[in-house]
Every structure is written in C-alpha cells, then in structure tokens.
C-alpha cells in the first residue's frame, strides 16, 4: 500500500519536473513546479516527516513560488511564450547528464546491497510517531542545533536586506 502511494507521487513528481524544464510558457513551468513541490511534500509524509511536509507546502509552494510568479509577471509581461528556448549546448548537456545519472544509479544500488544499513541514532520512526514529529524536531533544534538556527535567521535578514537594496530605485535629488 505504501509502495503504491510512493510510485503514484514519485511518478507524478517526475512527470511534472520534466514538464518544468520543457514547457515554452514560463507560467506553465512555474505551475508544474508547484505540483512537483506538492508531490515532494506527499513523499515527506510517507517518510513520517510531517513537519517538513507542512513547511514544504507553506514555504516552497506557498511563498517561494508566489515570489517566482510575481517576478515572472513583473518582467515578462509582454512575452510569456519563448521562440527558441534551448541553449546551443543542450544535446551535449542531456547526454552528459544522463551518463552521470547512470553512474549515480549504479552507485546507489551497489552500495546499498554491499553494506547493510546500521541505525545511527535511537529514534526509530515508531518512537518518533509516538512522541510526535514536531516535538522531536523542537527538542533537537533548540538545544543541539541552536547555533545554526540563529545563523539561519541572520542569513534570512541579510537576504531580505539584499533583495530590497538590489531593486530599490534611488531618487535623484
């Protein structure tokens, strides 16, 4: 049953990711990317990471994609269909990327059958769903990972200031 849901969401996610990179209309690409993010959030729920699924829908599909759509509508408003949309290097890029993907796929299957997986921590998924995913993440994020958490907030402040300064038109006196 779980395998059925995994193949459903992985299939829809892969097809909409291929649609993202092959559509001519930029708005269609953005909407297919929203569908990809929702499928990835469903895979997170299958992996019993419910807080990450909520964060993914709220932040990625809700905030980042709305930002993308606003930017597309701000700068592309007369021309949303592309005439020639692929770079000159695209046949070479597709061939080389497929070769590297084949190498990675071989590595994944070979490593996982050679070395069995030993659990690193003691929080098995059953124990996490007993305590609650949000509680477990909260108990780790604010004690052991407090410093990266504060640095992430400083980073977001810097990104916000940078985005405002970059697009501000300075009034000429």
């Amino acid at each position: 049953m779980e395998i059925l849901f995994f193949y459903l969401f992985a299939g829809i996610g892969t097809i909409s990711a291929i649609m993202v990179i092959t559509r001519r209309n930029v708005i269609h690409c953005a909407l297919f990317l929203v569908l990809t993010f929702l499928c990835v959030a469903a895979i997170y729920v299958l992996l019993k990471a419910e807080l990450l699924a909520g964060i993914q829908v709220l932040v990625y599909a809700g905030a980042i994609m709305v930002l993308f759509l606003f930017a597309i509508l701000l700068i592309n408003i007369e021309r949303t269909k592309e005439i020639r949309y692929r770079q000159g290097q695209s046949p070479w890029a597709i061939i080389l990327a497929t070769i590297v993907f084949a190498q990675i796929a071989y590595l994944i299957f070979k490593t996982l059958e050679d070395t069995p997986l030993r659990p690193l921590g003691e929080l098995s998924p059953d124990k996490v769903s007993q305590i609650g995913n949000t509680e477990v993440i909260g108990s780790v994020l604010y004690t052991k990972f407090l410093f990266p958490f504060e640095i992430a907030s400083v980073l977001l402040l810097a990104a916000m200031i940078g985005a405002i300064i970059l697009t501000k038109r300075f009034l000429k006196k």
Partner: protein
Amino acid sequence: MVPLSHYLMFGAVLFFIGVIGVLTRRNAVIILMSIELMLNAVNITLISFGHFLHNVTGQIFAIFVIAVAAGEAAVGLAIIIEVFRGRKTLYVDEINIMRW
C-alpha cells in the same frame, strides 16, 4: 515498506532533471526554478536517510536547506530583475558583454 534505494533514486532523478534544466534552458527564471528542483532532490535524500538511519538530523538539515533556498530565491530574483532592467533581455546567452 519502500526500500531506501527507491527514495534515493527518486531524489537522483529529480536532481538530474534539475541539472538538465540548468544546462539547457535560456530563460534565467527557469534556471532558478531548476536550481530549486535540485535543492528539493537533496532534501528528499537527506530526509530518507534520516528515516532509515533512525536519526532526526536529516530533517533538521532539510529545514536549513529550505531556509537557505528561500533566501537565495529572493536574492536571485532581485538580481534577475536588475539585469532585465539593464539589458532588457532575460536570455542568458544574450547577456554576454563580459565575454572575451
């Protein structure tokens, strides 16, 4: 029970679709969208390893990746808007005044 290799393969497929998108498309906004696809593929790999190794560190790392991706998308789009105001084009092979 879905084995770990299935999740990793899904992550690898999404990552390489993103790579092909970055290397193939001319529009700068779609290149940014492909970068977001790659970041999502990395998140899937992190969270699936965290699930199978009984560790919650994978999810913590994925939270930070999402935070950094949000900041990077904002700054990247601001840069693209500024380049469009100057060069009047969004195609990355036409923005070439610094070429030799």
